[in-house]
């Protein structure tokens, strides 16, 4: 039997469900074949999942139906089904947490929260209406551009309740550290920039008014006074607005390099001094109009760049994603406390139950259960644990309740060691230094040389003023601002575009690298597959679905599959617990009990498909229900791999899982077996990735972290561990691997735009320089023409952004 593909799975489930072909989820709009319904005034309202249904109910209960009206007005926005987290956020109420994240004043407390999943007008509306849903919230203020919401709450309001409300609404809350100083420093910098720009514009405008009359032929005393006035008005521009140029030029000189602010600064300083000298001596030109225009236009184009960069999720927001779990600690006197995981100490006894992440390495004291170690090792099969078993931090308890004694914390845990390794690996130096940077540097050297040559040539002929003017014109017109703007602008736009698709890029140079790579290494468990065993087929021989019976039998069971079965049932119906007699769990065999005087047993059923596990429900030893469980491929994996191959990439599978599992998945995905690596340790992954010069690594777990760091480009998928997020360059905040295609497409386009921009600005500068050297231009024309090239670059990039959105 071949492994079933997505089509066959959905076919099976649609066979099991009634009836109409497909429904659109009322909350998120996703089309689904297996809807859930609630009845509202005898009409049935369809949802794709429980998460969306919960959000709908909260919104209706609070009479906030306006939300759906707003949503309709923005049909273009896509949303995704709501994922309901099981977290209870209790640790947000701890003093430690509050000190770091909450600012408390006498009559209120404030917290900033980064909300994952803000995507449209209706989200904004919903968040700002949270004061109606929770009496503790005084006000909520969301900044749509960076998804940061500030909540002002009454004193004693529990932060955990706010976080729970937000997560119920479908926005994952990531509290932002209460870093007032840094925050205000950032804001101040931005505001200063705007003020610089405003002053430059106001002064330029006034000076140009005077210049017009001078150019029109004003003579005599009035001309002199106008020129003196221009000088006075130009001073704030030259001494305040232009300071960033001087600073950056000075810094580059200190590092013995030329940067584009150097010619600008030289033009400003010498142009300004020259103007003052002309005024004092009474003959010669003043250039205050040209200089102020230059400063204003340069500041303007850089401000535009700054604004584009800020748009959407900025790379810095990745910091907010680090999670911090809490854990229950049992003290010697029997008291149970909830503590933030990072404050755990050696020999603490901690209590873990289903769904918990193990926060430290240690040994099980009591209890049994199963853990999913896929994030740490890549192994997809759950591992059973009992007393004395060793647990590692970064693994997840998928069933059972147990207590554990902490033996290693922090950096000495297995996870901590990998983290140290990741941090020690030197951050990659970009081998492809941006081309435009290089060109600009040579360009500036040539221009500086030419200016000097012009001055000395004309001084030699006894006409210093002419030489100085031509040199100034040359300095201004060849300022390679367009060249310098071209690359960062296109990159920032690409990052903006990607972030609107839920792809968060840490550093810009990554895009250039993506466009050049050929090999993609993909982790299997958790990346291409979901990493958890899920019910793929529920096949009953009769009409009865046996949901309640299975749920009752499994509700107390501890074996790994029990949780998967329960999750599946709970997503379908609200199960009813039946009364049971003689309930018995036989480890390795199954569970059995007597319900309504019929003996039921759940146990293994031999399965021909090596990839999946099949279990059966026996009614009086007669199999009446077969359930197949497998670690499913993500819905987009097959198509994504196909498209990746079509785009000219070589996909490789790289997994810590067994040969059988890896090869089977490779076959389904159409990856050649020689490109499928199995039973790979984290270190081997690094070696394999290193062998290829330019490679992309896609992964999620701790076992991928080092490879993510080592690869040219590391991409962490949704659900990744913190450590992988730290190591990766790109984070996909939407499920699945198909965003990789978007990254490839946009990077390639971006490189095209950069090339186009660079060719244009080089041409422009060559023509301008020729004209300036031959004396066809004066500094004012140069000052007007030069920024025009920057604007052409801005426009060319802008059209690219618009075209795709």
């Amino acid at each position, binding site marked *: 039997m071949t492994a079933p593909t997505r089509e066959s799975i959905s076919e099976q489930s649609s066979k099991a469900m009634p009836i109409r072909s497909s429904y659109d989820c009322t909350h998120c709009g996703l089309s689904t074949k297996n809807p859930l319904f609630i009845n509202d005034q005898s009409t049935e309202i369809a949802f794709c999942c429980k998460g969306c249904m919960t959000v709908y109910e909260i919104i209706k209960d609070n009479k906030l139906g306006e939300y759906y009206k*707003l949503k309709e007005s923005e049909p273009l926005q896509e949303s995704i089904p709501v994922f309901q987290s099981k977290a209870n956020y209790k640790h947000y109420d701890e003093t430690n947490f509050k000190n770091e994240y909450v600012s408390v004043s006498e009559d*209120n407390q404030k917290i900033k929260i980064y909300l994952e999943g803000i995507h449209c007008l209706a989200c904004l509306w919903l968040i700002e209406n949270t004061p109606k849903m929770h009496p503790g919230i*005084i006000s*909520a203020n*969301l900044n749509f*551009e960076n998804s940061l919401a500030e909540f*002002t709450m009454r004193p004693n309001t529990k932060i955990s309740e706010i976080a729970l409300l937000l997560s119920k609404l479908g926005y994952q809350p990531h509290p932002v550290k209460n870093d007032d100083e840094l925050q205000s420093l950032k804001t101040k910098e931005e*505001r200063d920039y705007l003020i610089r720009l405003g002053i430059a514009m106001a002064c330029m405008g*006034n000076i140009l008014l005077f210049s017009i009359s001078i150019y029109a032929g004003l003579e005599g005393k009035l001309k002199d006074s106008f020129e003196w006035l221009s000088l006075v008005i130009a001073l704030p521009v030259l001494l305040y607005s232009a300071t960033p140029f001087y600073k950056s030029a000075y810094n580059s000189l200190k590092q013995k390099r030329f940067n584009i602010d150097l010619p600008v600064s030289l033009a400003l300083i010498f142009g300004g001094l020259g103007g003052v000298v002309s005024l004092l001596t009474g003959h010669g030109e003043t250039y205050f109009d040209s200089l102020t225009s230059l400063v204003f236009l340069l500041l303007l184009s850089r401000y535009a760049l700054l604004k584009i960069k800020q748009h959407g999720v900025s790379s810095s927001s990745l910091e907010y994603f680090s999670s911090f779990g809490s854990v229950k600690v049992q003290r010697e006197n029997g008291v149970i406390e909830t503590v933030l995981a990072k404050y755990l100490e050696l020999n603490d006894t901690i209590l873990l139950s289903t769904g918990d992440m193990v926060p430290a390495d240690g040994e099980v004291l009591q209890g049994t259960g199963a853990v999913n170690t896929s994030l740490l090792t890549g192994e997809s099969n759950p591992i059973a644990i009992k007393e004395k078993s060793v647990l590692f931090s970064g693994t997840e308890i998928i069933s059972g309740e147990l207590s554990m004694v902490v033996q290693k914390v922090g950096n000495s845990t297995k996870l901590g060691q990998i983290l140290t390794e990741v941090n020690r690996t030197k951050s990659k130096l970009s081998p492809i230094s941006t081309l435009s940077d290089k060109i600009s540097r040579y360009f500036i050297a040539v221009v500086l040389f030419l200016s000097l040559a012009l001055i000395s040539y004309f001084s030699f002929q006894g006409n210093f003023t002419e030489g100085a003017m031509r040199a100034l014109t040359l300095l201004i017109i060849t300022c390679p601002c367009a060249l310098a703007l071209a690359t960062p602008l296109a990159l920032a736009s690409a990052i903006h575009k990607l972030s609107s698709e839920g792809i968060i890029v840490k550093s810009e140079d990554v895009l250039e690298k993506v466009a050049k790579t050929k090999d993609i290494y993909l982790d299997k468990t958790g990346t291409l597959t979901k990493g958890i065993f899920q019910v793929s087929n529920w096949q009953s021989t009769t009409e009865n679905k046996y949901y309640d019976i299975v749920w009752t039998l499994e509700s107390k069971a501890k074996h790994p599959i029990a949780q998967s079965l329960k999750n599946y049932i709970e997503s379908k119906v609200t199960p009813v617990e039946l009364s049971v007699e003689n309930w018995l769990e036989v480890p390795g065999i199954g569970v059995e009990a007597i319900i309504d005087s019929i003996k039921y047993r759940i146990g293994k059923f031999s399965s021909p498909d090596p990839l999946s596990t099949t279990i059966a429900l026996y009614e009086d030893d007669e199999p009446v229900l077969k359930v197949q469980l497998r670690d499913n491929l993500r819905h987009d994996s097959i198509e994504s791999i196909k498209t990746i191959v079509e785009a000219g990439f070589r996909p490789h599978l790289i997994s810590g899982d067994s040969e059988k599992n890896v090869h089977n998945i490779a076959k389904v995905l159409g990856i050649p077996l020689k490109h499928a690596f199995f039973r790979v340790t984290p270190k081997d992954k690094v070696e394999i990735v290193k062998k290829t010069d330019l490679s992309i690594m896609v992964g999620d777990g701790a076992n991928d972290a080092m490879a993510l760091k080592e690869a040219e480009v590391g991409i962490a998928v949704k659900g990744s561990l913190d450590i992988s997020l730290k190591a990766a360059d790109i984070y996909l905040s939407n499920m699945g691997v198909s965003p990789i295609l978007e990254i490839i497409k946009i990077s390639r386009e971006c490189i095209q735009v950069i090339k186009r921009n660079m060719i244009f600005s080089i041409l422009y500068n060559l023509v301008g320089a020729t004209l300036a050297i031959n004396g066809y231009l004066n500094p004012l024309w140069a000052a007007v023409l030069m920024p025009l090239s920057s604007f052409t670059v801005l426009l060319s990039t802008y059209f690219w952004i618009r075209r795709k959105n």
Partner: protein
Amino acid sequence: MEALLILLPISLLLGGTFLFLFIMNVKNGDFDDLSTPAKRMLFEDENINTNLNKKQGLEK
């Protein structure tokens, strides 16, 4: 031409005043978030109250 002696200072004063107002507005934070208020404006009127509360809440 004597008119210039009066008009020039007036024009400079006017320009200076608006520049000063602009700088005050920037320092007040009116330009910090340029996109959200534009969207907020589209909501129905009942929200005006919440938004007013918000301002007061922030000022405290």
